[in-house]
């Protein structure tokens, strides 16, 4: 490929090749503070390419490729090349990760203990993780939490934080950090990437013991309820993209996690309430 970029995000190395300079330049800028893959060897390769030679120049359309592909993936416009790169990297993780049980969840850490937040798209797990990062927590990831079957620890995967729609303005006023370009009218609405803070990037190889699993839901009066381990188990098997692939290791890791880790569901009317609920729960552990 003409343009190449590589980066280590947590324990995972990526190599991104592109027919265009633009997406690579954006990645180089936003991931400037991240290390390169250990020994220069990437775990996953991503390709951004034109589906027809003339599409490199004429109304450029970015196709996503790599070690693992979804046959139905639609091309994106070149203005959304950064999103294409991020989606492609997520896809490699979702389909190809075999070492860790992948939980579709955000995670933050304090005092060596991890808070794991999961829920449906739009529940606010990404925004809450980003906000907690600005309030003294270390961001471990806004999209995937990596559960190590060998140790039961959560490993960080602090890729760029993907803010969508209303969350963009919330974080623009809350975080002084570095943002990527505003990507308007993507298939997921407006998206803007936020670079995790220096501390979160510097500590990205430090795993943490899971201490609380949270299922946030936005749009209701503040409420908290306990969630039974068996319900957590079912929800997390659904929130994992590689539970079936990991087979026995996945089962053992997940049953251990749900038996040992308390879980709560919270309803919250606004992000300030959610932060207060999280802090209160954390203090009561």
């Amino acid at each position, binding site marked *: 490929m003409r343009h190449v970029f590589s980066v280590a995000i947590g324990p995972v190395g990526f190599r991104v090749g592109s027919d265009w300079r633009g997406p690579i330049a954006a990645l180089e800028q936003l991931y400037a503070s991240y290390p390169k893959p250990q020994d220069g060897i990437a775990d996953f390769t991503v390709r951004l390419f034109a589906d027809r030679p003339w599409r490199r120049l004429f109304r450029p359309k970015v196709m996503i490729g790599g070690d693992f592909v979804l046959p139905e993936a639609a091309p994106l416009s070149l203005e959304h090349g950064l999103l294409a790169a991020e989606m492609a990297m997520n896809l490699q993780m979702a389909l190809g990760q075999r070492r860790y049980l992948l939980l579709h969840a955000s995670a933050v850490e304090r005092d060596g203990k991890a808070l794991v937040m999961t829920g449906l798209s739009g529940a606010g797990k990404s925004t809450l993780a980003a906000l907690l990062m600005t309030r003294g927590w270390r961001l471990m990831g806004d999209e995937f939490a990596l559960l190590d079957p060998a140790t039961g620890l959560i490993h960080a995967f602090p890729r760029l934080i993907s803010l969508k729609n209303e969350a963009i303005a919330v974080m623009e006023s809350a975080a002084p950090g570095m943002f990527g370009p505003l990507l308007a009218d993507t298939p997921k609405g407006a998206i803007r990437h936020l670079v995790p803070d220096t501390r979160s990037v510097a500590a990205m190889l430090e795993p943490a013991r899971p201490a609380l699993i949270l299922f946030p839901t936005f749009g209701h009066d503040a409420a908290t309820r306990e969630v039974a381990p068996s319900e957590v188990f079912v929800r997390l098997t659904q929130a994992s993209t590689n539970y079936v692939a990991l087979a026995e290791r996945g089962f053992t890791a997940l*049953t251990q996690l749900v038996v040992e880790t308390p879980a709560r569901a919270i309803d919250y009317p606004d992000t300030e309430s959610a932060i207060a609920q999280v802090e209160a729960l954390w203090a009561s552990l």
Partner: protein
Amino acid sequence: MATLYRAASPDSLIVVPVDLLTAIYHRASGQTHLMASPAPEILEALTEAPLDAAALLVKLRADYDLVDADPAALAARLDELVETGLVERR
């Protein structure tokens, strides 16, 4: 002769009581099952030796103090367990 039932061998199962429900991983099929009582007890009772439904009912009554054990309900649970592959008919 009455149908005998036998549980999958203990080597092929990982059984983890999670709360009121029990999680069971079946190595032979790669499937995960989440089961409520009395399914885990039935599996346990059918581990040592195959039993027919009447003998199983007697054993469950003795081992687990089941006072209102109902043969029809037990037959339904056995059918479900056979469906999952965790119990086989012989």
